[in-house]
């Protein structure tokens, strides 16, 4: 091996060699469909990693840029006849590059500094994190349920967070929040390959939750959901958690204790339960043709497909339609590229919009803050008359 610090799990070698190079991934990869370049699709990246293992390629800047251009949507895993866990390979190679001391791409470097410095990707102050919250939620208290708002809601747009709280309170649902003490789940920093910092976040968050007797983590952020399910616990969606305790190479030496006893759900799952129990009653009609968009983090990565649909179906007047590719074959909105390649992110988003414009959808319902922002960009770019709303916002609208 050229670079002895390029460490992958032993099973990663098998993954790389199992690639049949059939190219099925080319059909579903959003970045490939934009660029037409083989190095921008799973097959190309897997073969590049194979070249590194076989001493034909170093951990070059060119390799790094191609590996970091991946959306981590994992559509390729679903399309792959061999079931290659591409997302895990991409993550493992980023981790290996960070450990080898390779400088991150510029857009990622800034993000990392912010998360390590202020425990959020926006670089805003920890002390201001809970400012949007009613007083009773600004400090943690013992409770079996913690509602984790996440950084996007806390710092970028708290509208959905406020509505979620209002909805839960209207159903007399009990929960606490970490408030001013809430910290990033660590997903963005894990995605960029800094597993050591991500592990520090995981350890700290789990210790805090245990301190307050938490049994269930509820979150309104799809990214946090994915992180809690696949990294904190082992309840991931489609494939085995990439970071299960078996894979010691991807964890730091003294990992935090297993967190298998936490139940992790999205707020929409709780809303669906409450609707089922009659504690939430969607009453006002909403006569719209709505396409629900299966975001990658809540869908493929976390396995939550039905709860958002149940919530939408419970709203009188809503006609629910599907995107041409949906559930585990859903296509990414392009959101993860917003920071590093806004042009491509918007181009991918506009393709998604066009898919349901053709089906006369009047609205796209999403369950992820990234999807919301990026699909709106895509709609603007097309000049399309397409409303994009969070499922939570729609439920809120019809409850009051």
């Amino acid at each position, binding site marked *: 091996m050229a670079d002895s610090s390029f460490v992958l799990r032993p099973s990663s070698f*098998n993954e790389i*060699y*199992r690639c*049949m*190079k*059939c*190219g*099925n991934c*080319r*059909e579903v990869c959003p970045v490939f469909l934009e660029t*037409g*370049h*083989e*190095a921008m699709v799973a097959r*190309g990246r897997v*073969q*590049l990693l194979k*070249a590194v293992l076989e001493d*034909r*390629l170093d951990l*070059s800047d*060119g*390799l790094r840029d*191609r590996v970091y251009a991946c959306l981590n949507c994992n559509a390729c895993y679903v399309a792959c*006849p*061999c*079931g290659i866990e591409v997302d895990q390979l991409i993550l493992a190679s980023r981790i290996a590059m960070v450990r080898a001391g390779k400088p991150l791409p510029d857009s990622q470097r800034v993000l990392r500094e912010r998360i390590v410095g202020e425990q959020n990707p926006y670089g805003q102050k920890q002390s201001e994190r809970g400012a949007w919250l009613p007083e009773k939620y600004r400090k943690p208290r013992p409770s079996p349920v913690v509602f984790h708002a996440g950084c996007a809601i806390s710092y970028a747009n708290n509208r959905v967070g406020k509505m979620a709280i209002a909805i839960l309170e209207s159903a007399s649902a009990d929960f606490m929040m970490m408030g001013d003490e809430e910290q990033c789940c660590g997903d963005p920093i894990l995605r960029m390959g800094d597993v050591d910092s991500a592990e520090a976040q995981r350890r700290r968050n789990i210790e805090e939750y245990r301190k307050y007797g938490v049994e269930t983590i509820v979150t309104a952020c799809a990214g946090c959901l994915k992180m809690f399910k696949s990294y904190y616990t082992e309840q991931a969606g489609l494939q085995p958690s990439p970071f299960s305790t078996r894979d010691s190479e991807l964890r730091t030496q003294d990992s935090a204790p297993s967190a298998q006893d936490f139940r992790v759900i999205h707020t929409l799952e709780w809303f669906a339960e409450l609707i089922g129990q009659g504690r939430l009653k969607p009453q006002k009609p909403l006569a719209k043709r709505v396409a629900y968009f299966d975001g990658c983090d809540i869908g493929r990565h976390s396995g939550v497909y039905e709860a958002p649909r149940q919530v939408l179906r419970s709203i009188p007047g809503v006609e629910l339609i599907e995107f041409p590719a949906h559930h585990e074959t859903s296509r990414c909105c392009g959101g993860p590229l917003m920071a590093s390649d806004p042009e491509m992110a918007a181009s991918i988003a506009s393709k998604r919009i066009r898919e349901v414009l053709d089906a006369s959808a009047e609205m796209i319902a999403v369950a992820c803050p990234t999807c919301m922002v990026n699909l709106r960009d895509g709609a603007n770019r097309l000049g399309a008359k397409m409303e994009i709303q969070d499922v939570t916002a729609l439920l809120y609208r019809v409850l009051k």
Partner: protein
Amino acid sequence: MLGDAARSRLREIVGAPHFLDSLEDRISYSYDATLYEALPDAIVYPGSVEEVAAVVRLANEERFAVTPRGAGTGLSGGSIPIAGGLVMVLTRLNRIVAISTDDLYAVVEPGVITADLAAAVARRGLLYPPDPASQTVSTIGGNVAENAGGLRGLKYGVTRHYILGLEVVTPKGEILHTGSATVKCVTGYDLTQLMVGSEGTLGVVTRIWCKLVPMPEHKESMLAIFDHMDDAARTVAAIIRSGVIPATLEFLDRVTINAVEDFKKIGLPRQAEAILLIETDGQRSAAQAEADKVVAICRENHAGSVQKAADETERAQLWLARRSALSSLARVRPTTILEDATVPRSRVPDMVRGVREIAERHRILIGNFGHAGDGNLHPTVLTDIRDKEEYARAEKAIEEIFDLALSLGGTLSGEHGIGMAKAPFLKRETGAVGIKTMRSIKRALDPNNILNPGKMMLDEA
């Protein structure tokens, strides 16, 4: 090796963004869907037939090789740049130029993905029949170069039966038009059919006139499970003898059935020696009558169970086993080698038995499935390329499979092509005169041996 002057010229011809020569990009274009790999010096993405011609002319001046490429999903090594030089990717030429519903043809550029063409013509009630398994990623240009087949081969034929005419850049960089958009055409040598299946060695296809047929009104799908291979084989023969040519007649062997059960857990009986998946299509009454005949024949030949799909959902269920065959087999071992040896239909039982015997003797796991109706089976070797000893046994087994097919009056390749994978065996099938004839054609059209050199054993004197 591509000189600096040539690289500058190439950047001028295609535009700098469409010229790639980093090591990472070169590695990305060094492979296809086989186990072969070779680094090109550079990659170009031409945007017009003029650019293609200019690149090929430059290649003749500077004497570098040019290997055309579509999606790079070929199964014989046709797009591997073994002589280095340039990989020329045709995917920027991806327009469906015209569809004529009156004259039943479509005009397409080579980078159009086959399934996209099929979907576009289907919207107008027409069918482009050749359906290689790779159709959602492979390109029409690649299909033409390799004469791709597919599941509809038995009733509808293969790619070559659906190409009316071509625009081709010759190995000397001239623009050639072959064939005609008419139903019938006999004017000079049939250069269209010379180009189809020539694996990128005689020209770069830049425009294709595809024949279309009306979309059949109705389709019936059936799945029959057999305890004994011979019963399934007799069923295949009996169906054809009865005057029914099914649109699809696919087969899975026991190794494949068990791989599918391991992965998909459909509920297939693991002891079954064969599964047949059969489809009839055409006018509703005809398709149904043919389907009834097929079901009866299956039962007469001791099929343990025969299921007929009542609707699209059930059809998808019946198809699941066949659709999952390759993916299920691919998950068994790290290395999967998909072969293509084809025999006359009547020899399918001998071929299946022979492959099983070869597998046992070499202690190699081989799953067999494929187009039983036209004799084009896909013995699939499951091994691990990193285990040198086992891999040597696998290679020996594959060579014996070729010999077996030839001994049964068959051919090395029904639909994947010769490329690199089967080049060493080509002479066993064509004979010395065949090779000599092909080489003289190659030399006449490509005197500087620019286009895809080293393939199909065309290089030696």
